[in-house]
């Protein structure tokens, strides 16, 4: 660790927090359909979309209709992305003449992008045509993010509502999230990224002569003359537009295989800073939107504070572990990191991308020190609620808030209530399901993988590190993160199928109970606040919330982590 690195992290946090209020304010206006500035420009487009799709924007939906619309929309997206990959060979915009994607990989990728996970079992430049990238993955990058934001807004309306059944109109929330928030931000970011050298091109891959030709010994054939390599293929494509939304929408699916470690995706320190800022930008600002929409901004700040209280120490710890290296490796651990980013920016990215359910990487987490790699894994395991995905992170956090409020409420001798809404068995049941599903999927998925040869053969390292690779994959998929530890050969039928199922269940089996809570809360009349009411904006409550997230989210994984990264660290130490 050095002062320069620490300074960069502080600047990052300061800029992030500075954006919370203005962007949060803007989004609150968007969701309340108040004038927000851009509406003068975009309102005709919005109206045209509604007319074209036959949407009645004034129609309010109950939670069941809302959930059904969302599920149908996602199902259509799923089929479209699957179909597109399967027939990409015969469709245009395929200059590299890539073949159809295999059924299991298509299945996995379709779920991955529709569920805002963006787990990538494939390598972009060797698998996907430009059309598949743009029409399939790019579109889902927008709408899967917008879906998450819609669910959050529905939940917030439930909290703010009083004796109503309506929680909003899914089609309107989806359209407004995309049109007013994700699109404008993406356009701005994409243009800046292009200025930094991120590629945006429809030209075919370029073959160029190497400036320093290399000789490669052929494996297993000692004594034979080595092969001289004089040229390389440079993949191109419409990357910048995809990368902007991949970060802003906490998607994380890279255009190229090595994601934002690739110089064409992330060429300069400035592009790196902007991308890592974009990862947490909307999730952080949505906290403010939430506070504004429930008419108590302190509530939004409190939730953001809880997120930061967990995030900042973990960021510092990752930086510390990577900067310290291990007893085997003297000095900082630069393995798997780009020299143009260094330790501090790699640690920041690793922490931010797993705190938010983004999953893009600018360094390879597989190469981190055991404890440095434990932190990104653990951030996913606590349920992607520290910032988390756009929308999904905050609604996940609000599920933890419900649990925390319940216990804290009992401790002050009242039927627990949050923002005046009583937390009763129905909410508790739904919140329990929401917290339980990701935990269960991680644990059971990992268990299945280590028991079956199809699963355990995918690891690239023996011992606890191999176990970490599997645990990481299921933690990522079951929390809709999409980050990969690398090292694990996941493009196999077993992993494509099991991780696909995890991503699907984690996303949609969570959205339904969340919307159910939204509906049930909306129908309740708020209880007025008195001095006997548990205040949920105080430092004490923030501390309580942090403890609940850590204890419920983390205690579950202590034994598994002990067998993975912790054992690995101690083994290293004993060498």
């Amino acid at each position, binding site marked *: 660790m050095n002062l320069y690195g620490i300074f960069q992290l502080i600047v990052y946090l300061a800029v992030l927090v500075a954006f919370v209020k203005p962007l949060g304010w803007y989004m609150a206006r968007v969701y309340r359909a108040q004038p927000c500035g851009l509406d003068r420009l975009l309102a005709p487009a919005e109206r045209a979309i509604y007319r074209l799709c036959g949407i009645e924007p004034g129609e309010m939906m109950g939670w069941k209709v809302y959930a059904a619309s969302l599920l149908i929309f996602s199902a259509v997206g799923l089929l479209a992305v699957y179909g597109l990959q399967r027939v990409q060979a015969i469709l245009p915009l395929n200059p590299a003449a890539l073949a159809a994607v295999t059924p299991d990989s298509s299945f996995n990728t379709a779920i991955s992008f529709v569920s805002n996970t963006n787990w990538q079992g494939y390598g972009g430049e060797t698998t996907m045509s430009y059309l598949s990238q743009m029409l399939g993955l790019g579109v889902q990058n927008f709408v899967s993010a917008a879906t998450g934001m819609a669910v959050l807004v529905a939940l917030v309306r439930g909290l703010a509502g009083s004796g109503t059944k309506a929680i909003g109109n899914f089609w309107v929330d989806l359209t407004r999230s995309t049109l007013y928030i994700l699109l404008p931000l993406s356009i701005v970011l994409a243009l800046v990224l292009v200025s930094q050298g991120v590629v945006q091109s429809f030209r075919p891959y370029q073959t160029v002569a190497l400036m320093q030709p290399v000789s490669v010994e052929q494996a297993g054939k000692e004594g034979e003359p080595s092969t001289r390599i004089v040229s390389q293929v440079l993949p191109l494509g419409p990357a910048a537009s995809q990368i902007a939304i991949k970060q802003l929408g906490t998607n994380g699916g890279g255009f190229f295989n090595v994601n934002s470690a690739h110089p064409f995706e992330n060429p300069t320190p400035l592009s790196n800073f902007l991308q890592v800022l974009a990862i947490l930008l909307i999730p952080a600002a949505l906290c403010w939107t939430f506070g504004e929409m429930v008419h108590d901004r302190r509530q939004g700040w409190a939730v953001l504070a809880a997120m930061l209280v967990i995030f900042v120490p973990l960021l510092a710890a990752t930086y510390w572990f990577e900067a310290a290296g291990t007893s085997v490796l003297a000095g900082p651990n630069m393995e798997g990191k780009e020299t143009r980013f260094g330790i501090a920016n790699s640690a920041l990215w690793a922490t931010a991308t797993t705190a938010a359910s983004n999953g893009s990487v600018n360094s390879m987490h597989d190469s981190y020190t055991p404890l440095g790699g434990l932190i990104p894994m653990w951030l996913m395991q606590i349920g992607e609620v520290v910032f988390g995905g756009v929308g999904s992170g905050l609604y996940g956090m609000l599920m933890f808030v419900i649990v925390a409020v319940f216990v804290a409420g009992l401790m002050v001798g009242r039927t627990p209530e949050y923002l005046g809404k009583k937390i009763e*068995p129905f909410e508790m049941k739904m919140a329990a399901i929401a917290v339980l599903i990701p935990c269960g999927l991680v644990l059971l998925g990992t268990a299945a993988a280590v028991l079956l040869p199809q699963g355990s053969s995918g690891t690239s390292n023996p*011992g*606890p590190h191999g176990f970490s690779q599997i645990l990481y994959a299921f933690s990522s998929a079951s929390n809709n993160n999409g980050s990969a530890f690398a090292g694990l050969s996941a493009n196999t039928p077993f992993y494509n199928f099991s991780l696909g199922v995890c991503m699907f269940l984690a996303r949609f089996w969570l959205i339904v109970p969340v919307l159910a809570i939204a509906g049930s809360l909306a129908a309740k009349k708020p209880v007025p606040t008195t001095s006997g009411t548990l205040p949920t904006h105080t430092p004490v409550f923030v501390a309580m919330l942090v403890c609940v997230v850590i204890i419920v989210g983390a205690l579950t994984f202590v034994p598994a982590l002990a067998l993975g990264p912790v054992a690995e660290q101690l083994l290293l130490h004993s060498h």
Partner: protein
Amino acid sequence: MATSNAPHSLFDSAIVRGAVLASLAKLNPREQVRNPVMFVVFVVSMLATVLWVQAIVSTGEAPARFIGWVALWLWFTVFFANFAEAMAEGRGKAQAASLRKARRDVKARKLSAPSRQAPSTMIDGAALRKGDLVLVDAGEVIPGDGEIIEGVASVNESAITGESAPVIREAGGDRSAVTGGTTVLSDWLIVRIAADPGQTFLDRMIALVEGAKRQKTPNEIALDILLAKLSIIFLLACVTLLPYSIYAVAQAKAADPASGAAPVTVTVLVALLVCLIPTTIGGLLSAIRIAGMDRLVQANVIATSGRAVEAAGDVDVLLLDKTGTITLGNRQAAAFLPVDGATLEELADAAQLASLADETPEGRSIVVLAKKHGLRERHIHELGATFSPFSAQTRMSGVSVNGREIRKGAADAIDAYVARMGGRPSEQARTIVNEVSRRGSTPLVVADGKGRTLGVVELKDVVKGGIAERFAEMRRMGIKTVMITGDNPITAAAIAAEAGVDDFLAQATPENKLDLIRKYQLGGRLVAMTGDGTNDAPALAQADVAVAMNTGTQAAKEAGNMVDLDSNPTKLIEVVRIGKQLLMTRGSLTTFSIANDVAKYFAIIPVAFAATYPQLDALNIMRLNPATGILSAVIFNALIIVALIPLALRGVKYKPVEASVLLRNNLLIYGVGGLIVPFIGIKIIDLLLNAF
């Protein structure tokens, strides 16, 4: 205060003995399945026992001695949870038994018509149905709850209230209800039975303390869901640990074939599971509920459901009757204020005359005040005076003596009287009346038959000592206090200010009382009130927590969801405290239970995987003996249930402070305490295990 329902000492030896037996009886699976957390422990205890038998008769997965000890302590965990519940039930039963003594087998004289002369048959008290008429003579026990339809009698209610002074019960009005098991001391009563057998107060009270009504409240159901969720998570974490461990062993063996790695045993997993799931709160949950009800009964209040008790904790508006609750029962004459040239003596004399036959406390206090002004008490019969009592029409009372008429009453009534008598209502009196009202006192105007206003008697409400402090407490708890009074707004405002209530309803009628409750409820508030009269019944039925006075009418008692046997209107405050304490005990022990898990991980994980990864011993920060570390954690987990039984039964301390302060305090005690205590406890147990 009551004596019959006095608390039993916490560990009364007879109760403990009964509880030990009862906890063994509760090992029945059908009994266990009601509590999801303890059911898990029950099942894995059986599993551990099977493993132990296997280890004895053939090769076990671990030394039989180790499995045996773990199994034994798992059974102790189940047993201790049962014991906690049985203790609470036992204490309830002891109370029920003392209540049952009141329900002797009585014979009832059933009447065929509501008249003392009507033909009667002697039947068993237990055979009486709702609507039956019975005659009860002096010295007889009232056979069931009911309403007096004829007669006046003094009744000893000590069997129910513990209060030995007899009370008067009479037909009509607000003192017409009688309770089965109480004794008529003098005179006779005809009672219409109001409850079928098994539905009387005594039955309800016994059922309540025995915990027969096991209906869970919504809060409990929600907590059960949370605990079940935690149990499922930890179950998954422990079950999947076996494949993880098998994989780790395979990896270790591949790296070093000589490695002594062995997969984690089922016994260790079972031990880990039981330590992680929230057994502490799970085991004490029903004890907490029963003890909460028990505390209510100790306060001499019967609730119709557990839900009502919890609702009491949520109350945010308290409607309190002024008289008897906020002020001492009655107003006292404090000053004579003559007007229009009348002298003080004249006024005192007239006021005394008018009050001689007035047996109301106000009337008597006027005579007492007159005495202080040097006027001897006279006898109304010696004066040959005739008394005209207060009536709702005239709203005055007074005397006619030697052709002279004296009247006292409310200002407007007297003004009307003066006008009728040809006089002019006094301006000065009006000024004084307003002044007196502003002071919070009640003005009583005295006038004579010549249409002359003599002056004003100031009747003062005496606010109970210490009541303002209690209301301040309420405010800190977030509870709004509203005084209900029949007084005019000016008087009401003055008393409200003196007593420190937040709001008041003046000139209250049953209708505007009901409206007020509805208004608060529409705003999302939970309203509590007390009442005794039949006209209180609609408001009682509307209120969320309604405490009826035992002295009140049957209608009031049926409309309320609690009955206060002491008929003490301030009891509402106590009820709120008990409700809050019940919820707080649950919340605090849940926090404690979950916080305990951290230490247990540090105790079990290093030892469990020592064979595969000896390096994990670095996590053994308590430096436990690898042979006994896991057992120490299991023993701690079992013993902590017993250690917390007194807390579960007594309830956590409740201080009337703001919610944020309360949360901070309880988090420090039960959250931080819950983190630290097991580290110390497990270490001590481990040291003890290794000392022998």
